[in-house]
């Protein structure tokens, strides 16, 4: 090989690496830009308390978005997350007040959430209903049941200690943040280091080929929605504990849109098969910073939607270099 060519090749390898970095991690770059812009725009932004606030604020949507990522990687969508969160919260608080046991409440939450997810999964995998419509139905149904149980109002926990779950700190870091990070690591490992994750990607990319490879597509899908339900119940537990109450009418409203936005900003493809957990993590942070900045900068309330919509679109365009 001539030295010239070798040189050229080396350069091209470098460029490849860079473009790889870009395509894989453009969301991180977008995040950094927004982060830096934010710290210039508001002196308060970098304050450690503010940073902690942001993390705390994104933790609930973040945990939901992790589940949403998995669903979307499998080629589906879950519109029911917000309603299921409300339902799980309502039932968990009732269980809490009835038994007086925090553990019972948390367990109830997990069971209700995974069960709702399981139902979604069954509708999608066995009933062969488009996930959009199946989870739209679940969205209506779960909210409805929550309203019915709680009579349209909100229910408060009557057991002291329950609110400690979300309101305690460990080494100065709030529990919800820690739970969010643990969940991120957990879902990351699940998706990238285990067979389940591999199968989810395969199904999202080519369902028929996945099936002909001997993958139990049905079971994997059921698993995907159940997992999401479980993650929603973790989020519901945090939310309920944080406010020591849950509203059957307004809790979780439009969480699905926030979660989906975070997932897409994070670079996951709408149609499945492509995307990364780590992208969602940063997508969630970007949304969190946006909300935070809008409050810090006192954007007119009627215009906040505009600014947010705009920045989301810019962030997505920005990372759209294939």
């Amino acid at each position, binding site marked *: 090989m001539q030295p010239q060519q070798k040189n050229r090749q080396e350069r*091209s*390898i470098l*460029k*490849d690496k860079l*473009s790889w970095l870009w395509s894989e991690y453009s969301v991180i770059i977008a995040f950094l830009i927004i982060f830096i812009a934010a710290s210039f725009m508001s002196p308060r932004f970098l304050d450690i308390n503010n940073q902690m606030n942001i993390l705390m604020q994104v933790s609930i949507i973040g945990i939901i978005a992790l589940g949403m990522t998995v669903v979307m990687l499998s080629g589906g969508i879950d519109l029911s997350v917000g309603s299921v969160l409300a339902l799980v919260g309502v039932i968990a608080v009732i269980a809490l007040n009835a038994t007086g046991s925090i553990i019972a409440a948390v367990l109830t939450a997990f069971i209700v959430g995974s069960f709702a997810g399981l139902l979604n999964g069954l509708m999608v995998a066995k009933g062969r209903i488009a996930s959009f419509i199946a989870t739209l139905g679940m969205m209506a149904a779960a909210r409805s049941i929550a309203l019915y149980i709680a009579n349209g109002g909100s229910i408060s926990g009557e057991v002291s200690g329950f609110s400690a779950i979300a309101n305690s700190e460990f080494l100065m870091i709030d529990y919800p943040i820690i739970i969010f990070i643990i969940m991120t690591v957990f879902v990351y*490992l699940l998706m990238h*280091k*285990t*067979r389940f994750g*591999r199968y989810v*990607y*395969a199904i*999202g*990319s*080519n369902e*028929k*080929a*996945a*099936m*002909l*490879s*001997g*993958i*139990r597509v049905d079971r994997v899908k059921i698993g995907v929605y159940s997992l999401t339900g479980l993650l929603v119940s973790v989020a519901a537990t945090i939310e309920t504990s944080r406010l020591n109450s849950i509203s059957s009418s307004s809790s979780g409203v439009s969480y699905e849109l926030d979660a989906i936005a975070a997932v897409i900003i994070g670079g996951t493809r709408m149609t499945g*098969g*492509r995307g990364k957990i780590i992208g969602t993590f940063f997508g969630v942070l970007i949304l969190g910073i946006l909300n935070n900045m809008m409050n810090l900068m006192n954007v007119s309330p009627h215009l906040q939607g505009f600014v947010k919509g705009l920045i989301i679109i810019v962030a997505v365009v920005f990372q759209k270099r294939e």
Partner: protein
Amino acid sequence: MSNDWIVEMKDIEKSFNRIPVLKKVTLQVKKGEIHALLGENGAGKSTLMNILGGVHLADKGFIMVDGEKVAITTPKESQQLGISFIHQELNVVGDLRIYENMFLGSELRNKLGILKVEEMCRQTKDILAKLGVRLDPKEYVRNLDTSYKQLIEIARALLHRSRIIIMDEPTTALAEHEVERLFSFMTKLRETGVSIIYISHKLKEIKAICDRYTVLRDGEWVATGSLKETELDQITNMMVGRSVSEERFVQEHSFGDTILEVKDLGCEGEFRDINFVVRRGEIVGFTGLAGDGRTELIETLFGYRRKSTGEIKVNGKQVKINHPKHALKAGLGLVPKDRKENAIIKDLNVIHNLTLSSMSHFEQAGFIQEKREKSRFSYYRDKLNIKLHDPTVTIDKLSGGNQQKVVIAKWLEVGPDVLIFDNPTQGIDVGAKREVYQHIIDLAAEGKAIIILSSEAPEIMKVCHYIHVMYQGEITASINGDKATEDLIMRYATGSKREGGKGGKYRNAATAKE
């Protein structure tokens, strides 16, 4: 410059992700000739044609059509120059009807802008009839067999009365008689002055139909010449650097125990009364024309479809197979046809495609051992001679032939007792084809049982010990491989001859008395 050339591509260069795929390639095509474009998998044939078809832009070089320099940046511009392109991968719109596909992008409309449906249907019917196909133009394309989809793509190119037609492996999914019809049609076109650029790995076809050839190797131009003056041997030599024999190379050896036994298998509307056995070390072939039900049969056997009657025994034990996973557990493996739809997961990288069906080989405490995956991949890369730069790119970046090798490797890794290949050499170059056959034969020698499905009688004859011919969902003949002739197979496959014991019990479905 002489005006002989209708198309001239000069010094074309192209790289993907900085990897050069075409290096100063030149292609010159005469008016009214069929020009073969030859080369191994990944030589750059499709890429070169994609540049002519406006799908990709060349990095360097220029294109002349009719002696004039042209800029082709979109498929539309290419079409406007009178170029039609039949792509290597099927590009029909499944949710549209046949005639809608035929006229897609150039619909016939009346003055009000309303589509002239009946006129389009009529023309569709005509052109299909010329190719010897009788189909309802209003049928949805998604309901058609792959070979018909392929024919529709071809018919569409012909319909547009183009001056230049690019055919990138048009016959991979076609049956023999369909190929013959296509060829006679191409000959007629050539007489009217149409030029055809023809890509195929089937050298027999090349010899039969083409006038001149250009060979590419590793993205470089190697040779151009007249087929009349060049022996096939020479051409394969130029392509793969050695010559490839064409004779039957199955090894006769004694078979072991019966491993797969299929009794009275049937599936409503697809096939019925299927009986056969496969023994260790045996290579059994299934052949027939499009629509003979052999793919459906195998999909049923493999648990992708539901059977309506019959039973399946593996190693003497009856097994229930309702899902491919059950088939996998029972010891069956399937390399499906139509790689793009059924075999590759295009968003997974090459290694992950390889290991998808055998995850348990790579797990430790529930976690995937990526090192082990990698080393396993290197093993198959050497063994099957898979050509790629980086196994962590998604598999759709590989050339078709190399994709196929990865799929085969995937099933080798599973290591089933019975390995089924449906159209295993689709789009594979001559060199690689031989390698694949060799692997199949080695597997048989190791004591595996092999089933091969192919519509190419020669391929089946070359590697199978035993051949079942299917016609309209039934096995019409079962022939010993060494007694089979192409002619005999064709007669059974077209239904013009039937086995005496049709519908009788297996084992009695005796060898054809020919």
